[in-house]
């Protein structure tokens, strides 16, 4: 009798599993649990230190190249980075080479600039979307205004206070590129190495392992990886946000998958030996 019972449970209707997953993911959204976040990975810490050691007023360039499909992992990361830059009163410039990210950048800066009452044009500037990344990267090495004469709303940037004294990579303290695409590789290869500017990155969990070599040779001055990296960065700047609640949900979901695999194997053994 027990064998049939287990057999039935073995062939369980998968909709119960779906319901279980939905609940495990929805609970942390409604009430973040704040599960322990063991260690801050050294790569994330290096990005934090690169921004932390900059004197107030130095210029940071963010290249935010992600779109709605990679938003859950990368948007919390970008928000934490911009919050960190504003909390250190750094001057911020934003460029993008993915058409889909313009909406997300507007949303991010509308929210965060209110928190730190930063003014567009004075404390930060957002440049328009440019399709041909290689041409722009090489042009910015000599003269930024050659390619970006106006910001994304069309106002001329030359006399903006945020860009005072900024002409090319030499005047920028650090460049952080948050993307799920190969754009970070362009920044490292065409800018970081050639013009000796520190480049740090933020990527999705899937593409994180690929950047091991760059980190070892120090071409990349630090890397935030996936939702876990975003949660680590949020705990570094002590501002829990979507990253922290996200990592709680992922913690539970991953353990759910493991628990399910275990039960199905235990059932298999039981049925075989009963």
């Amino acid at each position, binding site marked *: 009798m027990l064998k049939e019972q287990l057999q039935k449970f073995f062939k369980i209707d*998968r909709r119960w*599993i*779906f319901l279980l*997953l939905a609940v495990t993911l929805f609970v942390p959204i409604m009430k973040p649990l704040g*599960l*322990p*976040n*063991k*260690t801050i*990975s050294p790569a994330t810490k290096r990005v934090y230190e690169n921004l932390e050691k900059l004197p107030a007023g130095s210029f940071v360039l963010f290249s935010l190249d992600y779109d*709605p*499909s990679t938003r859950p992992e990368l948007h919390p990361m970008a928000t934490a980075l911009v919050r960190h830059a504003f909390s250190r009163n750094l001057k911020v410039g934003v460029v993008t080479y993915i*058409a889909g990210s*313009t*909406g997300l950048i*507007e949303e991010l800066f509308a929210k965060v600039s209110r928190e730190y009452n930063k003014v567009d044009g004075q404390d930060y500037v957002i440049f328009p979307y440019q399709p041909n990344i290689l041409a722009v990267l090489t042009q910015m090495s000599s003269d930024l205004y050659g390619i970006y004469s106006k910001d*994304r*709303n069309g106002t001329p940037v030359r006399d903006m206070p945020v860009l005072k004294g900024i002409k090319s990579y030499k005047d920028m303290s650090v460049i952080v590129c948050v993307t799920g695409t190969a754009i970070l590789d362009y920044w490292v290869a065409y800018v970081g190495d050639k013009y000796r500017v520190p480049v740090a990155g933020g990527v999705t*969990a899937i593409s994180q*392992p690929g950047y*091991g070599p760059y980190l070892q040779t120090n071409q990349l001055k630090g890397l935030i990886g*996936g939702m*876990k990296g975003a*949660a680590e960065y949020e705990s570094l700047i002590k501002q829990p946000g979507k990253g922290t609640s996200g*990592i709680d949900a*992922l*913690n539970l*979901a*991953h*353990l*759910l*998958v*493991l628990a*399910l*695999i275990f039960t*199905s*194997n235990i059932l*298999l053994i039981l049925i075989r030996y009963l």
Partner: protein
Amino acid sequence: MKLIKKQIPLAIVFITGVLTLVSYYVPHKMSVNYIETINKWENIVVAFAFLLGLVSLFFSHYNKISRKVDGWGYSIFVFIGFLAMVVPALVSQGKQMTDTGFTALGWSYKFIYTSLSGTMFAVLAFYIVSTAYRSFRIRSLQAFVLFIAAFILILGKVPLGQIIWDWVLGWTGRGVNDVIEWIMQVPAVAGKRGIMIGISIGAIVTSLKIIFGIEKQYMGKD
């Protein structure tokens, strides 16, 4: 007649194939210009191919509606969805954002298209769980190896998993990240490289069959 129907198309495949192949080995400005023009042409032909798809989609759903096939009511939604994206695109000339905020296209892209495609992508997470439950059953040694690799990766990627690993296997002195690093850098690379090399040779042989007209099956046999 056979010349126009069969010989010339095969000649087009051969000439375009060989020219594109040779341009890889010729750095001269002429071959760079050739590649640029042929890329542009390819985009244009693909745009027309898309038109072909659009017309066949409208054709099949229009037939469903006119012949009142059961479930024809849903076909109307195909046209509604199409207009819900194209009309705002016309209105806001293809721009999603202006300084005042969302344009009409920005609205329909964010609330209609992204939520639909994002949701279909997210449904994958449900199916990953049900596939994991169904197929990671250790019936053979090979299945056991598959199970172990997936288990370590899934466990090690989340902080709680790392804590559990340290708690259970802390005595080995190896953090789960090092083990994941090793798995991804050594055995996984060997497996992936084996497959990639096989694929590349297979793809090259098939491409040669196309260029030299041995693989003609796609042309039909009249």
